[in-house]
């Protein structure tokens, strides 16, 4: 009896969470004649394929839209933002964890708090800044602005990660004659690799998900990222190509879901560090 209730509850949550993705999947591969039947026709069941599935929407998406280009744009921004974030946040996290002493904790908290300042508060001043720099409608604007979101969180992640790495290895290296700087340059990088991996993954997911800044700064269809182009530019006039739209949403969600499944616990650890430590 208890087991039945458990399975029913698990099923309920899974269906609620997964339903829009099932809907993406079925829409992406349905023929138009199967797709566009009004919901008032109760004899036509929309939950299943009433006609054989088709690849026509996928072909449309990959062959006749700017989707492939948006994927390239997104990857370009990801690489640039990852480089900036790793170069800035990893040394900062190391500094806060190992070198800053007592004020490191406070400063780390302060940097983390800037992560809470939302894009929707900053997009107005950024609009001014971006046009002053002549970066409007360019991927450069995104590459400049996205690290404002990744650096605070990643500094915090690296700091937390290093707290869990024993200090003895670095201490031993210093006893062996390395200078403090030598330890940082030669020994520490090897220790931080898993932390850096988390930083890269977090940055990747954030860039793929970001919508507000992209919407504010990018207006040309050819310069859009996936999360902007799909909902904004795949809609032609008043015509929604729902099959292609859902295929695009599905293809973007799959890699993110896989990455999240592997890394979620580390992100959660970052979010809850303040409340469960000790």
């Amino acid at each position: 009896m208890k087991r039945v209730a458990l399975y029913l509850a698990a099923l309920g949550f899974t269906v609620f969470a997964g339903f829009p993705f099932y809907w993406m999947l079925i829409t992406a591969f349905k023929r138009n004649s199967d797709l566009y039947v009004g919901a008032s026709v109760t004899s036509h069941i929309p939950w299943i394929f009433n006609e054989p599935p088709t690849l026509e929407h996928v072909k449309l998406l990959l062959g006749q839209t700017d989707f492939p280009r948006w994927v390239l744009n997104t990857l370009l921004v990801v690489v640039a933002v990852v480089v900036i974030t790793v170069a800035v946040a990893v040394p900062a996290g190391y500094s806060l964890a190992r070198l800053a002493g007592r004020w490191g904790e406070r400063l780390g908290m302060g940097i983390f708090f800037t992560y809470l300042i939302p894009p929707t508060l900053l997009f107005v001043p950024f609009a001014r800044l971006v046009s002053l720099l002549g970066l409007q409608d360019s991927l450069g604007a995104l590459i400049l602005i996205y690290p404002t979101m990744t650096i605070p969180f990643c500094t915090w992640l690296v700091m937390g990660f290093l707290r869990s790495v024993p200090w003895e290895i670095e201490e031993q290296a210093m006893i062996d004659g390395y200078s403090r700087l030598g330890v940082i340059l030669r020994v520490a990088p090897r220790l931080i690799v898993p932390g850096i991996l988390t930083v890269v993954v977090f940055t990747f997911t954030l860039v793929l998900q970001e919508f507000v800044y992209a919407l504010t700064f990018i207006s040309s269809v050819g310069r859009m990222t996936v999360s902007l182009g799909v909902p904004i530019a795949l809609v032609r006039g008043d015509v929604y190509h729902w099959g292609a739209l859902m295929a695009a949403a599905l293809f973007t969600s799959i890699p993110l879901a896989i990455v999240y499944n592997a890394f979620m616990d580390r992100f959660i650890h970052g979010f809850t560090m303040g409340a469960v430590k000790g």
Partner: protein
Amino acid sequence: MTGRRTLADREDVLGAAMLAPALAYVTVLVGVPFVFAIVLSFSDATAGSLHFGWAGLRNYAAILGDPIFLRALRNSAVVTVGSQVLVVILATAAAQVFRATFRGKRFARFVLLLPWAVPVSLAAIAWTWIFDSTFSVINWTLKAAGLLHGWLYWLGDPALALFAIIIVQAWRIFPFATLIVLAGLASIPQEIVEAAIVDGAGFWRRLFRIELPLLLPIFAVAVLFGVVYTATDLGVVYILTGGGPANTTHVLPTLAFQRGILGADLGQGAAIAVFLLPFLIVVAVAMLRLARRAEVGAR
């Protein structure tokens, strides 16, 4: 040579040098724009020109006399509170389910994470299709089950649209809250739970008397992040309704975007966005308190 060696061994110098780029980036590109956002709200700046004139409280007077703004402010509060209440209920229940072992748990957990992993804008477009006025699968299902006799225009009716927005926000955030609560459950010492079982406490008694009180700090973290993510989110409302029908479903971010960016009135856009600050200040103060309590508790 010895001078270089000492520099390479001075922790304060190295620490400052390694921290400087991050501090500079955050100060110049978050701190300064943050102050500038507030300054802009007192100005008559527009997107088209570089002119910058002092407008005093004129922007605030204008929006406070504007029924569309007042409605957006109310909508922001309703959506944030409504979705977070749902999130707390769903996350409490889901955490109880996912701490148990059952067949297919790995797959269920993978699916549970999907709403949190998918980009907001793509989830919102999928929900737009689900709520479509002609093809809504929800309407079909209700009709086929004999529960619906008229028709539901999900995104065309102000009250239904707001309800739809709350559902989507709760759907998006409850998996994240569930994982946070699960992390908290795992950190409750097993002895406490076992002692309660020995004392004869049943499931509900354990849940409400032991686990939920112990989990209060971690629940607070989940809700605080949830509040930030919901109150400041632009994508869901922008894509689902665009603030319509007839400007009835705007929230603060979408209205700030419409006035400040699309309407090019930076001053008024900034003034609208400033009304997000109370949400954020409450969250920041609460987080600081929690962190301090955790610090004291850890010692």
